[in-house]
């Protein structure tokens, strides 16, 4: 198992190295990148907003519940929701879900292309497939995913408001006071760093899984699942490392 881990790690790194090369034709790469940005951004926006509404709502309800038995003042709800969503919930949960959506469709797309010999066809034309097929996806994600994460954080804070203020658990002024308490702009940096790193993770790992798929539809399903699971693990692992380094 350890051996197979290093085998995959080695091949993963060599795929990334292959990927870095001068494009055969800039405009084709650019077109592909724009297409990917559009797919990822527009295609995921609704889902990201939806889940972050819930995330914010859950966080706020649960924190209000927990605080109600404490000496801590109620307006802390707003403060904790803000920091928790910005630093942790928005980047991590959004990217776990994006791994399921964007990641699995990348693995399926590349795996399908490999099985239908489309990757071979490109190779025979002389296209650097590692670069043409993988790079635009990762590059697009490095911009789009942090953006989605920022939107998610924003929507989550609104979701928190909607969950606890109209229901009378705390007042609007308390929530807003909390939102403005102890604000550390550095936390925004943490969020963006996480967004960028997770964006890389949830595209590069599925791309690797799809690019090297062998066999039939059973293996493709397997690769698809591995893509999601390994990205999830990698996201949580990176989350840990980033938290360790940045807090």
């Amino acid at each position: 198992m350890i051996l197979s881990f290093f085998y995959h790690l080695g091949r993963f790194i060599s795929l990334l190295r292959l990927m870095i090369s001068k494009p055969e034709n800039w405009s084709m790469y650019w077109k592909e990148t724009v297409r990917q940005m559009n797919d990822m951004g527009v295609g995921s926006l609704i889902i990201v907003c939806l889940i972050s509404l819930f995330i914010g709502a859950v966080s706020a309800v649960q924190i209000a519940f927990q605080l109600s038995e404490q000496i801590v003042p109620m307006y802390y709800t707003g403060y904790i929701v803000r920091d928790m969503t910005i630093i942790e919930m928005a980047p991590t949960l959004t990217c776990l879900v994006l791994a399921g959506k964007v990641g699995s469709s990348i693995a399926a797309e590349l795996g399908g292309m490999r099985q239908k010999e489309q990757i071979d066809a490109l190779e025979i034309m002389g296209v650097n497939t590692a670069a043409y097929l993988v790079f635009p996806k990762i590059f697009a994600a490095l911009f789009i995913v942090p953006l989605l994460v920022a939107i998610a954080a924003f929507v989550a804070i609104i979701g928190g408001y909607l969950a606890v203020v109209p229901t009378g658990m705390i007042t609007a002024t308390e929530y807003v006071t909390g939102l403005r308490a102890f604000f550390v702009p550095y936390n925004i940096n943490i969020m963006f760093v996480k967004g960028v790193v997770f964006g890389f993770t949830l595209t590069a790992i599925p791309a690797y899984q799809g690019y090297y798929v062998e066999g039939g539809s059973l293996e493709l399903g397997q690769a698809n699942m591995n893509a999601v699971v390994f990205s999830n693990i990698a996201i949580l692992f990176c989350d840990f490392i980033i938290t360790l380094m940045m807090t």
Partner: protein
Amino acid sequence: MIRAVNIKKSFDGVEVLKGISTIFEKGKTNLIIGRSGAGKTVFLKLLVTLMQPTEGEIWYGDVNVTNLNKRQLIDLRKDIGMLFQGSALFDSLTVEENIRFPLDMFTRKTKKEKQERVDEMIEVVNLEGSNDKYPGEISGGMQKRVGIARSIVLNPKYLFCDEPNSGLDPKTSLVIDELIQTITRENQITTIINTHDMNSVMEIGEKINLLHMGKLAWVGNKDEVVENENELLQNFIFASPFLQRLRKQALGK
């Protein structure tokens, strides 16, 4: 002209090709035939440089292509066209975009020049009117024709076809075969076709290489097939009792 010199290929210690030497001639349709599992696909992938042989050399004209680096391979591949077994068209592109793809990627032609070339290709493969359809919306035979158009749009010197007839009816098969033969003659391409379709053998077998268990069992052309007494060849081509009877009649026995 492509030359294979004593090609061997093993997977995990199992020898699949056991030393094959042969020549594929320019302007001719060269066939590789043989039973399922004989090693045709592996041989073709070696020839086309998608795989490296364990032993032996492959020569394109007077260039040894067995140990080229990445850069040289890319240059070589500008001269190669390939038709894949499942056509390998890009699902998200239309017929026209598929054919134009190599032009977009590798040439600096203007939009108009590219369009002219694409239209010319579409005419060659008789696909007028299907320009804006997606691969999922056209039949298997039409997909093959798009695949051919895409593989020759950059005027390759070498054309490889992996089972161009599999999954097609005999009539459509014939159309594809004749198309490949015409293109080969007119552009003086070295064409290598991998097939187990006996109609193709008899129709376009200008040079036939029979593989059996990883070895070259027979080499010849379509005119020699009926009369030759090589047992492996006869068992392969005239597989059914019906065909054997026909052969006997043809030989006047």
